[in-house]
Structure formats: C-alpha cells, structure tokens
C-alpha cells in the first residue's frame, strides 16, 4: 500500500487497459452503461417515475396534478360513485320504515330491500330533479355553484404552490363583510360605481386576510394549515362581533343581522326577463376569474414559477425563483378569490350579513379543489357538481325529508376516496399502475 499515494492520476495513463480483465458481454459496452445508474432506485422514486412515464405525453399541468393528487379521472368518477353508494345506505338506514322492516329481515328480506331501494331512488331522484329538473332548478344550481367555483379556486391556487389553504372560510367572511359594509354604508351611488366598488372591497379584504398566513409562512415558517385554521375562527368571532355593533346592525332588530345592501350594490339578475330566477351576474364574475386564473397558472411565467416552487422549492430557489414571494402571492390571490366569493354571496344573494354567513362554503372549496384535482377547469366543473349536490339536496330535504346534511356526508366521502386512491382501487380491485400516493401538502415542518 505504501506506494499507492504517490501513484497519483498521471501514472495510470501509462497502464495499458487490460481487456482480458473485463469479462465481456458483447454489445453491452458503451451505450448500455448509460442506463446503468438506474438499476437501484428506491421504491418510492421508482413509483413516481412510473407514474411520470405514463403521463409523459401530457402537458405539464396534467403531470403536475398527477403529482399533486395522484389520481386519475377514473378514480375521480369512482370516488363520486362510491360516495353516492355509501350515501344510499345512509338514506336507507335512516328511513324509519326500512329500520322497522329490518327487524323482521330474516322472515321477509325483500321488504327491507324494497323499502330501502325505494327510499334511495326517491331521495336521489329528488336530488337530480331539484338540481337539473327545470329552469328554476338550473338557476338554483348555478347560484349554489357560483361561490363554490371561487372558493375552489382559492384552494386550488395555493395547492399548486404546495400550500394547503384551509382559510377560504375566513377569507370569505372578510371579503363578504367589507363588501357588505360598502354595500349598505354608501348611499346614492350609481350601480356602475357602487357595485364594482363593493366587489373591489371584497377582493381586497379577502386578499389581505389571505396575505396574513402567506407572510407568516414566508417570514417565520408558520405552517399555513395551523394559521389558517386559527384565522378562520378569528374571522368568525370578529364578524360576529362587528354585526352586533351599531355600525352594522339593523336598527330595528335586536338579533345579529346587518343592514341591507343598497340596490345599487347588488348584482343584477342574469335573466332579467324572468325575475324569479336568482342566478345573477356574480356567476359571470366567477367564470371570468376562472379564465384569468387559468391564464395565470397555465400560460404565464408566474404560473411556471408557482408550479416549480410547489413541486420543488429548493430547485426553484436554485434557478433564481423566489419561493417566499410565491407563497405570499399565492395566498393573497387565494384570499382575493375567496373574498370575491364572499362578495358574490352578500351582493348577489343574501344582501345582508348574518353570523357565520360563509356557512361552510370556504370548507367546500377544499372538496371542490381536490375533486377538480387542482386544475382550473376541473375546479370549475367540480364547483358545478357540488352546486348540483347542494341545490338538489335542498329539494331532497323538502320532498323526501332526507336531511340536507347528507350532502355534507357525501362530500366528505368523495374527498376521502380522492385523497386515498388506494382505497378506491382496493374496493374496485383496480390494478394499480399509477400508485402515486395522495400526498398533497407537507408535514408541519417547513
């Protein structure tokens, strides 16, 4: 060994390569060695690569989303079907007659089955009827879908940056409250000024409220899930307080309800010749925002940066991008979108503030975004789908007495199946080709 150190690089040149020392497999030489480093890859990475290969002809968006949610269209459809199926069982078992029939199930099983199927069919057909059965039903569906599209986008945009926005609820409240304040606080303005002003107020307030978790994450590393959960609760309490103050409260009422938004700050009905239809211009606003967000996310340099930061923040930093700025921007945009939803709800539909007027629409945004698999088009479609569920659910409750909360249960089940594609595959015994996990956000550690 003693001579080894002095035999530095240069000396090896003089040693003739010894072909006999290489047990040769003909043809295996130069070209195949290029692939050799592939041989030993950890399983997780291998799976990623397989999933990626499957998607190799897709655009970067599609691949991104595959990486984000790890689910394909088939899984999405099966997730919805599974959720509806479980919902059916819940309907059947909550029906008193079915439960009674079950007590003599073994004597006459058909009774229970027939009653069960009847109740499910009745409930679900009431649901479909109530959502799609006519002009006014369709109008209600779109009325329900309008805020969902916007809160869905408010979750989808940060999701693409690798951030989980649970705060759409609070941002919605902030936007709606300020929009409402401008809506009833100012009088005597023409519609062309008053309405845009109120909308802008809502966007701005929501954006500011979204900016808070963004800046906290960027500056201090505070996990956005925790801070948005806390900010939701703060928003709920603070708006509750505000509505009870003289600035907001309707003078003739003692219960917490605000003054009404001026006519000049209300979204006009979309179908003006049919005044009973509540669908209004806020739907158009939602769709316009969706188009804008689509361009931003899929076609612009900002979207490229945001997607890169979401998928690999250190590589993005290394390439000269600025993750901290992306985090703040993504959350501010998200807040503005949720704020717009709040403004649309107050200025287009409710016209006054009540306690907790967001009523879970912000949380629904999570379902919508995951169902839409983080894609903009998908999110819009998912918003309409959940809109159907909501509008139909109200009819179901009225017609068959099946409580509206069923829609909530079905929604939860849909995301369970989307978030755990393995579960859907286990149920339907699908051979897993793209076994990517449902990992969306990251752990607490930043």
């Amino acid at each position, binding site marked *: 060994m003693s001579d080894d150190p002095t035999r530095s690089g240069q000396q090896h040149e003089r040693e003739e390569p010894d072909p006999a020392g290489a047990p040769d497999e003909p043809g295996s030489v130069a070209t195949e060695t290029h692939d050799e480093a592939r041989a030993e890859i950890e399983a997780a990475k291998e799976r990623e690569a397989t999933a990626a290969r499957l998607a190799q002809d897709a655009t970067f968006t599609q691949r991104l989303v595959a990486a984000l949610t790890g689910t394909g269209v088939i899984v999405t459809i099966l997730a919805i079907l599974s959720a509806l199926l479980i919902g059916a069982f819940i309907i059947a078992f909550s029906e008193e007659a079915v439960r009674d029939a079950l007590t003599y199930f073994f004597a006459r099983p058909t009774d229970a089955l027939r009653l069960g199927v009847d109740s499910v069919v009745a409930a679900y057909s009431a649901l479909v009827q109530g959502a799609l059965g006519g002009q006014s039903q369709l109008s209600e569906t779109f009325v329900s879908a309008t805020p969902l599209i916007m809160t869905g986008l408010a979750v989808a945009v940060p999701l693409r940056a690798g951030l989980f926005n649970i705060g759409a609820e609070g941002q919605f409240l902030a936007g709606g409250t300020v929009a409402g304040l401008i809506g009833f606080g100012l009088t005597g303005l023409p519609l062309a000024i008053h309405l845009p002003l109120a909308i802008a107020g809502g966007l701005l307030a929501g954006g500011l409220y979204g900016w808070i978790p963004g800046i906290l994450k960027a500056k201090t*590393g505070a996990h956005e899930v925790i801070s948005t959960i806390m900010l939701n609760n703060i928003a709920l309490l*603070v708006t509750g307080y505000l509505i009870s103050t003289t600035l907001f409260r309707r003078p003739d009422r003692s219960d917490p309800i605000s003054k009404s938004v001026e006519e000049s700050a209300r979204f006009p009905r979309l179908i003006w010749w049919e005044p009973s239809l509540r669908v209004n211009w806020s739907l158009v606003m939602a769709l316009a925002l969706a188009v804008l967000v689509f361009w931003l996310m899929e076609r612009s340099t900002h979207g490229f940066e945001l997607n890169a930061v979401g998928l690999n923040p250190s590589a993005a930093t290394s390439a000269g991008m600025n993750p901290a700025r992306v985090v703040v921007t993504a959350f501010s945009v998200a807040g503005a979108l949720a704020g717009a939803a709040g403004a649309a709800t107050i200025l287009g539909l409710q016209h006054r503030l009540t306690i907790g007027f967001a009523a879970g629409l912000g949380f629904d945004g999570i379902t919508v975004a995951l169902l839409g698999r983080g894609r903009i088009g998908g999110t819009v479609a998912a918003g309409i789908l959940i809109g159907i569920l909501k509008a139909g659910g109200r009819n179901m409750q009225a017609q068959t007495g099946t409580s509206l909360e069923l829609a909530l249960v079905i929604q939860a089940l849909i995301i369970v199946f989307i978030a755990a594609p*393995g579960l859907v595959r286990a149920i339907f015994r699908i051979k897993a080709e793209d076994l990517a996990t449902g990992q*969306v956000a990251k752990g607490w550690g930043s």
Partner: protein
Amino acid sequence: MSQATMTPAKRKRRERRFGVFSVLVVAVMLGVFATSARGEQATFVLNDARAQAIQLPALVVTVVPTVIVLSILVALIAVKQFTTGFGDRAVPMVGVVVLLFVIAFLTWAAAGDSLSVVGLLRGSLARATPIALGAMAGVLCERAGVINIAIEGQFLAGAFTAAVVASVASSPWVGLVGGIAAGVLIAFMLAGLSIRFQADQIVVGVVLIVFATGVTSFLSTQVLSGSPELNSPTRFSSLEIPFLVDIPLLGPVLFRHSLLVFGMIAAVIILQFGLFQTRWGLRLRSVGEHPKAADTVGINVLATRYRAVLLGGVLAGIGGSWWTLDAVGQFSREMTGGRGFIALAAMLVGRYTPVGGLAAALLFGFSDQLATSLQLLQVPVPSDLLLTAPFVVTIVVVGGLIGRLRPPAADGKPYTKE
C-alpha cells in the same frame, strides 16, 4: 432548547419585542382600566356557594389604585426587558405580564360588582378538560408521526355517540364507552387512510371533520329530533375528594368535579411519564422522529403508529363525551363549537407535551369561562373578541415569535418500507 441555539442579537431583538408588548399592556391598563371603571370598588368572592368549613371573607379592592400598582409592576418589567433583559427567564416573564394584565382586567371588570373567583377558576378547569384531552390525543398522534387535525371530528362523534348510548343504557359509564368507541372509530379512519393508504394527513383530517359534522348533524335532525328519548343521557355526577375539598379556595376549585376532570388530570400525568420516561414512549417518539431508524432496530413502525392514533382516539372520545355526559347533558348540532381546533392549538402552544398541553388548555379554558362570566356581569367587553384569544396566541406561538416550534421530524410523512 431553542433559546440555547439563539444568537445574542436575536435574543436581544426578541426581548425588545416583549418589552414593546409590556408597554402596550401598561398603556391599556392606564388608558382604559384606570379611567373607565364602573365603580370604585371591586369585590372578589373567594367562597363556593355551598357551605364550607372555613369561610374566607370576600376580597374587596379599590379599583384605580390597584390598577396603578399593577401597571407600575409591568412598567418595571418593561424597563428591564429593554435594558439588561431576563435572559433565560424571558418567556416566563411574558407570562407574568399577562397574569398581571389579567388581574388588572378582572379588577376593572368587577368594579362596582362582585365576581366569584372560585366559579371562574372552577369553570376554567372544567372547560379545559376536553381541550386538554384533545390536545393529548394530538400529542400522541403527532409524536408518533401522524398529523391529527380531526380532533374536532372526534369530539363531535364522541359527544353524539355518548349521548345516544348513555340514553339507551341509562348509564353514563356505558355512554362513555360509546363515546370512546366513536373517538376510536374516527381515529381508525385517520390511521387507516394515512398509514395504510398514505393519503395526505391534512386532507384526511379536514375530511373527517366534515364527515363527523355531516353524520352527527344528519342523524341529529333525522333521528334524534324525532326521538328525544335517544338524547337524554344520564350525566356523571360531581365527585368530591374528602378533606381536600375543604381547603379554602383551592378545595372547591380543584377537588369537586366530575369524574372526567379527574380522569383528564390523571391521563396528563400518566402520559407525560409514559412518553418521556418509559420504553413505550421512547419507541413511540422514535417512530415519529426517524421511522426508518426505529424499523432497523426491529420496532414495528406501522403498528406503533396505529396504536398511538387509536389511543389518541380513546382520549378524544372521552373529550367529546364531556359535552353530553358532563357539561350539557344533551347533544345538539355542532355543539363542540370549534373546541377541537382549540385543542389543536393547545397541543402546539404546549409544544407537543401533555403537561404543556394542559397548561395551554387551562389558559384557553380560562378565556372561555371568562367570556361567560363577563356576560353575566354585563361588562362592556365584546365576549366574541375575548374568545379569539386562543387563536391569536396560537398564531403568535406558531409564528415563532416566542421561540421556534419544533415538530417531530417525521410528522405527517407516511412510512413505506419498500
């Protein structure tokens, strides 16, 4: 811990931030409490309503001088914060400032009226019970590497099931078993989806909250509203610990509670010991910090995680049962009102330890109880704003303004062997 690794410059900056906080506190004390008291004197009742062996006289203080003395104390602390600083005791000093502020606030609030200190503190402990139990459920899960934000869902499921089961069996004990079963069921869904199916744990948590809210609300409107006999559980009665309960002030505050409160305190002590002094705890924490290391020494990572999450479910289920078997005695939709989120907050503020979680829960229970007490006194303070305290405190803590929060290294990361 985190203080040790801070640079002197950062410590200085932090201490200065605390100083600014103290100055603000002084400003509020002098500007609001000393000037707008509704009466000259405040009365603090130190006895329970029940007859007791030793009766303490009520404490009567004059508002303005008391507030001024308290603000001088805070001002002195502020001076030290701006000059030499408190070094390692910087964070505890903030606690002292908060405490002095709270005393001043109570003096002001009770001015011209009387406030039952016993009731306030006793209520705080009671209200802290589910929060602490939920926080411990969180500690168990996260120490083992599974994020649990579904505590709210476990509470709702536990409260609902406990109510129905206790009503049917006419026994709070059986009801408690039902509540535990419901908490464990949600925990099982969390464990299965995040450990077995490797779904995103935050998504699963959110989903389980929506799911539990949906199912309990659905069944509540669909079933319970039509059959009130299913929603009239027998409640746990209050227990007194003999002799100890006769201690003035402390006795009624600490030693006359329902079984769940005592159980919670026992659980905190056992868990604190278990996590940090036993083999079980060492293994559980190793799984949350570095699962592969645990695996390579023969510890079954997935089983350890399952067990931790399910045990967390037991605690959260008991926490949920508190509403229907102790505090309220009837289930109503969304009755837990976000306390699951406060439990999550308590876990974080308590820095992933059971004792810390209990301390935070007591703080949050206090603000909760205070909001109720103040409404009774008709103090012109919006109780809504007071209730934001736990959430604001959590943001401050998570934002690292008091020191960096260090979650278990593998928290939220699914473990795969191959």
